[in-house]
């Protein structure tokens, strides 16, 4: 059934021989401007004049990990504080902030993750001064009114209700609780229904005071702006900002808990959502690059062992991967997938098999070379836009990595040996400590999964 060959060129072309590629061009992490202002703000500028767009990203080095420093029941506080910044200042009402931002065709967004709180503004160059002024207002003069807080809380409580419709979310939520135990990384950044209900204006004000201050701030300017313009703009809005700052106590590194099987009931589920893993390294751990490459081999790209096994050989799933989630003060490594309920156990057995093989035997020469080529070849795409460069530059500062880190990263990856990978797997993967979190049709898997441990059942109301 092959199509008829119609041209001589086809006869000369031997398709069975792959072409020989050229030598990849060297790529270095772009240089960026960096300074610290007299008030203590770290400023980064990634200038790129190709498009008439400017972004300013404000990053405060405190996020959800510190929520529980403000009271045991305050999960979600950092995230709600960030959301409330745009809900009214001493100069502008929430409606005015929205109206002015939208009119400029600009974006003004706020949020928090585990390690930091963020405000970001983005517009065409011609509107940047105006949107930057609004960003400065929401950062410096938020009022945190109770009326607006009640609104935000009602929306958040509803969003949390909606999230539990999602199997992935449930599996991850139970997974984090079992893996991190009493550590603040066990909570969801968004909080939970009881913690959100308990948050009051006074809590927001405290979180704001301890977090939003110049010494705690990294600002990255990106795009159609020079370092001189950026620093001038920043100084004119923030030069006289002096807020007292006292760093909160960092959480302890989480302990490796013992193995557990947690089943979360999701009514009407036809698939099991699985997340299987345990505690792993912090982001600034010297072994990060090794563990990261090991994770890529396990489940970090399409030809990884987990995807090949579960999807391409067995047809168990549409999507399977492993993830190394490393934060400032804690981290974990896990395998994630979704499969039909009746192949839940078969899938877990395959995952265990792959984890054990990685610990017990070295990868082949070809596999190791492949993964190195993939990581190096894919790296330029992570530097495609000035904003993706900025994210990486911000991470250097947030995680305390040196400015040459990304160049070292690629070099280090290429120097790792087969033995390094096996030793890394042996050191950082612990099949006897795994938390097996499964969200789905609990009654139908309860008996089978006892082969991995005695299950604990989480009911969702």
């Amino acid at each position, binding site marked *: 059934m092959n199509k008829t060959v119609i041209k001589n060129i*086809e006869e000369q*072309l031997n*398709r069975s021989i*792959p072409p020989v590629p050229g030598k990849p061009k060297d790529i270095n992490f772009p240089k960026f401007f960096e300074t610290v202002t007299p008030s203590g703000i770290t400023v980064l500028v990634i200038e790129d004049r190709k498009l008439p767009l400017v972004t300013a990203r404000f990053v405060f080095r405190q996020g959800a990990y510190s929520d529980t420093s403000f009271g045991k029941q305050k999960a979600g506080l950092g995230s709600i504080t960030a959301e409330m910044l745009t809900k009214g200042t001493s100069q502008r009402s929430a409606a005015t902030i929205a109206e002015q931002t939208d009119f400029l065709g600009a974006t003004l967004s706020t949020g928090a993750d585990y390690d930091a709180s963020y405000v970001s503004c983005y517009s065409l160059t011609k509107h940047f001064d105006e949107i930057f002024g609004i960003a400065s207002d929401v950062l410096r003069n938020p009022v945190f009114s109770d009326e607006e807080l009640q609104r935000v809380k009602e929306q958040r409580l509803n969003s949390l209700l*909606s999230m539990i419709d999602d199997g992935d979310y449930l599996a991850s939520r139970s997974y984090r609780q079992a893996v991190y135990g009493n550590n603040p990384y066990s909570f969801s950044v968004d909080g939970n229904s009881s913690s959100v209900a308990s948050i009051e204006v006074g809590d927001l004000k405290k979180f704001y005071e301890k977090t939003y201050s110049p010494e705690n701030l990294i600002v990255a300017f990106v795009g159609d702006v020079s370092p001189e313009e950026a620093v001038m703009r920043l100084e004119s809005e923030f030069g006289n900002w002096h807020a007292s700052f006292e760093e909160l106590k960092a959480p302890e590194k989480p302990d490796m808990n013992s193995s557990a099987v947690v089943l979360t009931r999701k009514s009407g*589920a036809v698939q099991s959502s699985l997340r299987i893993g345990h505690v792993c390294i912090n982001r600034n751990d010297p072994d990060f690059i090794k563990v990261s490459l090991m994770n890529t081999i396990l489940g970090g790209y399409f030809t990884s062992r987990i995807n090949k096994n579960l999807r391409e050989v067995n047809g168990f799933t*549409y999507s399977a991967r492993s993830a190394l989630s490393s934060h400032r003060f804690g981290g974990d490594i896990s395998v994630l997938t979704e499969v039909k309920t009746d192949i839940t156990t078969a899938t877990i057995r395959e995952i265990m098999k792959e984890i054990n093989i990685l610990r017990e035997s070295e990868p082949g020469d070809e596999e190791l070379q492949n*993964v190195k080529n*993939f990581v190096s*070849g894919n790296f330029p795409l992570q530097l495609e836009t000035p904003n993706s460069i900025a994210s990486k530059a911000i991470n250097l500062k947030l995680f305390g990595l040196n400015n040459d880190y990304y160049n070292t990263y690629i070099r280090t990856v290429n120097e790792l040996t087969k033995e390094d990978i096996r030793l890394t797997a042996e050191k950082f993967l612990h099949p006897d400590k795994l938390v097996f979190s499964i969200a789905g049709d609990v009654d139908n898997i309860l008996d089978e999964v006892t082969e991995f441990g005695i299950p604990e059942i989480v009911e969702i109301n």
Partner: protein
Amino acid sequence: MKQRPAENIRTAIPSIEYLEHQLDNGLSVVMSRSKRIPSVAVNTTYHVGSKDEEPGKTGLAHLFEHLMFEGSPNVPKGKFDEILNNNGGDSNAYTTWDSTSYFICLPSSHLEIAFWLDSDRIAGFGITEEALRVQKDVVKEEKLMYVDNSPYGTVEDEGSKRLFANSAYGWPIIGNMDELEKTTIDDLKNFHNKYYTPSNAVISVVGDIDYDETIRMIEKYYGGISRGVDFKRNKVMPADVVSEQIADISDNVHLEGKFILYKIPESGSKEYYALNILSGILTEGDSSRLVKELEYDLELVNEIDTAVYGLEEAGVFAVSAIVLKGKSSDQVQKRIDSAIEDVKSGNISETELEKVRNRVETYFSSGRQSIVGLADKFSFLKTFHNDCGRINAEVMNYLNVTKEDIVMAANNFLNKDKRIVLNYMPKK
């Protein structure tokens, strides 16, 4: 109706340069150079989607999207992505009602590898029974994950089967699973022979390339493939809905969902652009009409959105709302309806238009940064409009929309008696 003269509106968005070429066998080539990073994106789009399937054999177009990675005459099963990853590259693909797109992204020094891999899958057929069996299972899991096990996951299927009833847009893109199960290797070969041909394809190459060298390589790998047999494409011709259809659907969700769908003209039509601007007025940004009124002022919804989908022969204007617990979804419906009626009566301010235009400019500027995104856009414009010039000109189609255009499009197409309303209710 007065068209706003183009010279009144200027945009500072820089133009993108590109070059077009066509091979003797009909393969359309679009190239655009960008030296920002030493990478290149290759997008091959075949003008075949779920609407081209025969009734009773649905799901073939999407199944192909999987199988094209699963073996060709010189690249055995399992090797496509392995070779690509090994060369620092990555791939993906998607299927719509009208087309199937494949993309590869890799270091520019390795571009020839992409052409070798990609061309082998149309030069010949190499899909095995084993690959077919495994990918049927993978697709079934894909459907379970995105449709059956996902909150509000059935909206697209429930919506299109009603809005496009008795037409080829009416069945799910992923297909009916019982029909998919019956697919044979012969079905695949016939489909491949008919649709996976140079004359039915566009290849777009964007990134760190040399134009002459790229054409030389494309001629080398694709030039010898026969153009395929010309065929007459069946028209879908979806009929209008004759009266309002309301369906209550119970789902594993905690919050009620309301989804309102109207059939509108096809992608690229004057109405398509006008209704896109209307969508911006209604739900883009916290100050937009419906977000401000329903989410903020009245606190009726957790989410409200509008979207315009442009298909080859029709379009969809969709309103979706997730209702806050304890609030009335009838009330939500009333407010949405009165906002649309208000627009139809001519109530749109110049400020609202200006606001959406500013957004459009920001959006089009930032959309120029991704080589994968640009390659996809070029393939789309060439396939459906045969006009790559729209890459630079299309923004003006949005910026030139007038209040009168919106009022007319809304009056002609956003009518209660021709719409579908899906009410998603929490299971008891």
